[in-house]
């Protein structure tokens, strides 16, 4: 099999071998149920609390404020639905570029009688905190704005939005699935009441995520049962996945500074080279307020799925949010919210970098991508390369 190069770390990451090693004992040696009152249970309970401590420290939270869940989708569902039902008021604000799990939780809440209003973004994908302030009403219970967008990588002014929400007495949730482990997070400094983070985006296993819930926030659980996670998330605790999640967090923190710099350099090289070498190509998102590993570029006159499959046949894995690649044949709501026309959204691709992306990988990509675009444009009825 020929070499395959992965440029889709924002979709999911491989598990770091150090993480696998840390998880190993917890499948069949230390397998106890952390709720059991015997030595098998005690040893996993202890490791669970250590894991919680690592993650709490990573975001400057108390251990009692970290609740493990099964996925970022679950955490986001819990934040929206849990806060909506536990508090008086019926108005919820979400940004228009949230992940589907936030938007669709909002859609479901509408059916239950809540009013869910969207906050717009500018052409870079940035939320204007002033708009949030204007839109908050007396009956607003929650504002949810993601930390970094999954498609275009834009980093939102979380601290400013959080401070407005605090002033107005409204809970503030941020989905940090794409930023946690990649850029520094401090829930206190960022004025965040609830925050989602995920393991499978940071070289940990799938099946573990968390919701930070600041002490005092009123919220109902989604799952009722044996009362694990302080009664907030009943289910036998997934110890191996959580151990992996915390080990992955530990590694990300240790390597963050260096990795942030390395990926930012590779990212900028990709962006600058493509924009220079491919006519009619444009960057989606913000040039600077951008997570280190995200590239999202729009090519006129070609369609994203065609680019994706052309690159796949050359061993390069990327992603596109073009309509033709979606089951609904609708283009990405994120790109449309940024003000792109449908035909512009169709020609956009996302490249996301990660721990095993090398500068050779980037060079290979930059060698073949302009050729792919050129070939597809030669088939297209529209303007060819100048």
């Amino acid at each position: 099999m020929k070499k395959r190069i992965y440029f889709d770390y924002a979709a999911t990451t491989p598990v770091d071998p150090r993480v696998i090693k840390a998880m190993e004992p917890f499948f069949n040696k230390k397998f106890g149920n952390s709720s059991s009152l015997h030595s098998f249970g005690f040893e996993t309970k202890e490791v669970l609390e250590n894991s919680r401590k690592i993650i709490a420290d990573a975001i400057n939270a108390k251990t009692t404020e970290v609740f493990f869940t099964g996925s970022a989708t679950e955490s986001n569902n819990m934040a929206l639905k849990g806060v909506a039902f536990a508090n008086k008021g019926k108005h919820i604000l979400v940004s228009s570029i949230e992940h589907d799990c936030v938007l669709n939780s909002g859609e479901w809440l509408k059916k239950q009688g809540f009013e869910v209003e969207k906050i717009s973004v500018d052409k870079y994908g940035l939320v204007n905190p002033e708009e949030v302030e204007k839109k908050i009403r007396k009956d607003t219970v929650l504002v949810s704005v993601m930390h970094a967008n999954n498609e275009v990588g834009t980093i939102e002014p979380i601290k400013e939005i959080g401070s407005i929400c605090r002033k107005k007495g409204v809970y503030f949730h941020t989905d940090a699935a794409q930023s946690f482990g990649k850029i520094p997070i401090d829930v206190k400094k960022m004025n965040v009441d609830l925050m989602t983070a995920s393991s499978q985006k940071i070289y940990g296993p799938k099946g573990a995520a968390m919701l930070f819930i600041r002490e005092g926030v009123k919220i109902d659980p989604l799952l009722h049962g044996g009362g694990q996670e302080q009664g907030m998330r009943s289910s036998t605790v997934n110890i191996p996945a959580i151990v992996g999640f915390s080990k992955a967090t530990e590694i990300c923190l240790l390597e963050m500074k260096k990795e942030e710099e390395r990926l930012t350099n590779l990212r900028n090289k990709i962006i600058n080279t493509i924009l220079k070498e491919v006519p009619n190509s444009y960057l989606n998102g913000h040039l600077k307020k951008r997570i280190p590993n995200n590239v999202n570029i729009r090519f006129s006159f070609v369609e994203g799925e065609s680019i994706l499959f052309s690159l796949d046949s050359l061993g390069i894995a990327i992603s596109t949010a073009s309509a033709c690649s979606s089951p609904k044949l609708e283009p990405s709501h994120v790109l449309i919210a940024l003000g792109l026309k449908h035909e512009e959204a169709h020609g956009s691709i996302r490249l996301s970098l990660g721990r095993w992306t090398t500068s050779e990988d980037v060079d290979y990509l930059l060698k073949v991508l302009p050729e792919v675009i050129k070939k597809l444009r030669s088939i297209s009825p529209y303007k060819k390369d100048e």
Partner: protein
Amino acid sequence: MNNGFYTKEVIKHFQKPHNYGKIEDFDGLGRVGNMACGDEMQIYIKLGKNNKIKDIKFETFGCVAAIATSSVVTDLAKKKTIEEALKITKQDVIDTLGVLPPIKIHCSVLAIDALSEAVYDYFSRNKLPISKELEDRHKLIIKRSSCHS
């Protein structure tokens, strides 16, 4: 290569599409779809003796399936008379490719529509009588306002 979404045949036609490009002195040009919908096709035909399609070319903006179906429909129509070419169905296109994912069936419709429009264009340019069937088909194609209907 089989990537689990498209058949080998689809990928083959996508990677090395047949008959793409322009015919400058075409006899008919069919244009369907639009960029906002994500796919647009243009088919050029050049006729020879006895209304035989001597040359045919396409230009397509679109996904893998749109490019592959354009390639196949132009292959199928080449050397046929225009009457025979109008009998090509979306099923003929799909059969050549093996199978298309359900959400991509509309691409095969687009491809046969582009061909039919090219023939219609030839007739109307030359003020030739147009059958009711072709006229109705033409009306239906240009009436389509929403994407992928």
